[in-house]
C-alpha cells in the first residue's frame, strides 16, 4: 500500500485533481443557479399570465382606452392617407397637354401610377420621354416599347413611382 502511494507522482497529479474539483464545484453552482432561474421563470410566467388576463379584460372593457385607441387610429389613418384627388390633379398638372391618357391606374400601397397613353407623333413621344425622365417627383419604374397603331397614334404604357416630393 505504502509502495503504491509512493509510486503516484502527486506533484503532477494534484493540479489535475484540483481542476476536476473546480469543475465539479462550478457544475454544482451552475446547476443550483439554473434551478433557481427555472423557479423564477415559472413564477414570473404565472404572474404575467395573471396580469395579462386582468389587463386584457380591462382593455376590452375600458372605455377610456377604447376612445384613446379610436383617436390614435384616426390620426394615424389620416396621416398615412394620400389623397387621390390631390394625386390626380398634381399628375394632370405635370403631364404635358399633348399626352392622351387612355387608362390610369393608381396603387396606394406601392405608391405608383400606371398609365396607358398615346401621342400623335414620334417627336412628341421623345419629348415626353425626355420630360418625364427629368422630373424630380416621379421615377419611371417600367415602360413598354412605343408602337405606332393603325390610327397613326403612338401607344405606350408607363409605371411611375411617386417620390415623396410629389406630395408637396
Amino acid at each position: 500500500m505504502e509502495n503504491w502511494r509512493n509510486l503516484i507522482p502527486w506533484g503532477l497529479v494534484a493540479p489535475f485533481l484540483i481542476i476536476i474539483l473546480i469543475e465539479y464545484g462550478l457544475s454544482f453552482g451552475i446547476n443550483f443557479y439554473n434551478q433557481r432561474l427555472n423557479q423564477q421563470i415559472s413564477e414570473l410566467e404565472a404572474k404575467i399570465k395573471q396580469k395579462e388576463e386582468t389587463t386584457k379584460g380591462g382593455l376590452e372593457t375600458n372605455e377610456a382606452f377604447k376612445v384613446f385607441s379610436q383617436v390614435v387610429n384616426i390620426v394615424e389613418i389620416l396621416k398615412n392617407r394620400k389623397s387621390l384627388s390631390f394625386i390626380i390633379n398634381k399628375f394632370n398638372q405635370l403631364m404635358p397637354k399633348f399626352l392622351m391618357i387612355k387608362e390610369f391606374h393608381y396603387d396606394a400601397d406601392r405608391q405608383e401610377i400606371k398609365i396607358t397613353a398615346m401621342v400623335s407623333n414620334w417627336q412628341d413621344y421623345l419629348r415626353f420621354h425626355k420630360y418625364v425622365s427629368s422630373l424630380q417627383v416621379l421615377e419611371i419604374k417600367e415602360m413598354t416599347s412605343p408602337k405606332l397603331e393603325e390610327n397613326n397614334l403612338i401607344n405606350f404604357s408607363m409605371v411611375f413611382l411617386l417620390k415623396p416630393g410629389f406630395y408637396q
Partner: protein
Amino acid sequence: MNIIIKLLPIILIIVIFYLLIYNLYPQYKELINLTKKLNELQNKEKEINALEKLIQSLSQNPNIQQLITNKETLNLWLPQKPEIEVLLAYLVGIYQINNLTFKGTDFKLIEEPKIYNSTVLPVKIISYNLEAKLNNTNLISFIEALEKNTRLMVIKKADIDSKGEARFEVESYYLSEK
C-alpha cells in the same frame, strides 16, 4: 500497476475534458438560455405594467373624459363595430349627390387586424370595390366625396379609363376588440 500510474495524467486530462464538454458546457448553455428567457419575461412584465399605468392615467385624464362624452362623433369616423349599414348609407349618399346610381358592393371584413400604433387597440378593415361611370366634372367630386366622408374611407387602388369607367378599391375601418 506501473502502466496505470504512468497513464494517470492522461486519464485525468481526459476526465477534465469530459467534464468540461459533457457537463459544464451544456449547463453553461442552459444558463445563458434561461437568463435570456428571464430577461424577455421581465421586459414583458414591464410592458404590461406600462399598459396598466396607461389605462389608469387615461381613466383619469380630463381630455379623454371629454372625448368619452363626445364618443358618438368618434364612432362616426371609426366605429367600434363594423356598422356596414351606416357605411352603405354613406355610399348611397355619395353616389346620389354625384348623380350616379349605386349598384351595390360586396363588403369584405378582413379578420387580420391592422396595427397603426402598437400601444393601442388595432383596427379591422372593411374592403369594398366601387364602380362608377364618371366624367371630367364628377370624377374629382366623386373621389373627394369618398375622401372627405365622415366615415373614414381610404382609396387603395383606382382604375380609370378615358371612357369614364372607374373602379375603386376602398377601405373603411372599425376598432378591433383585441
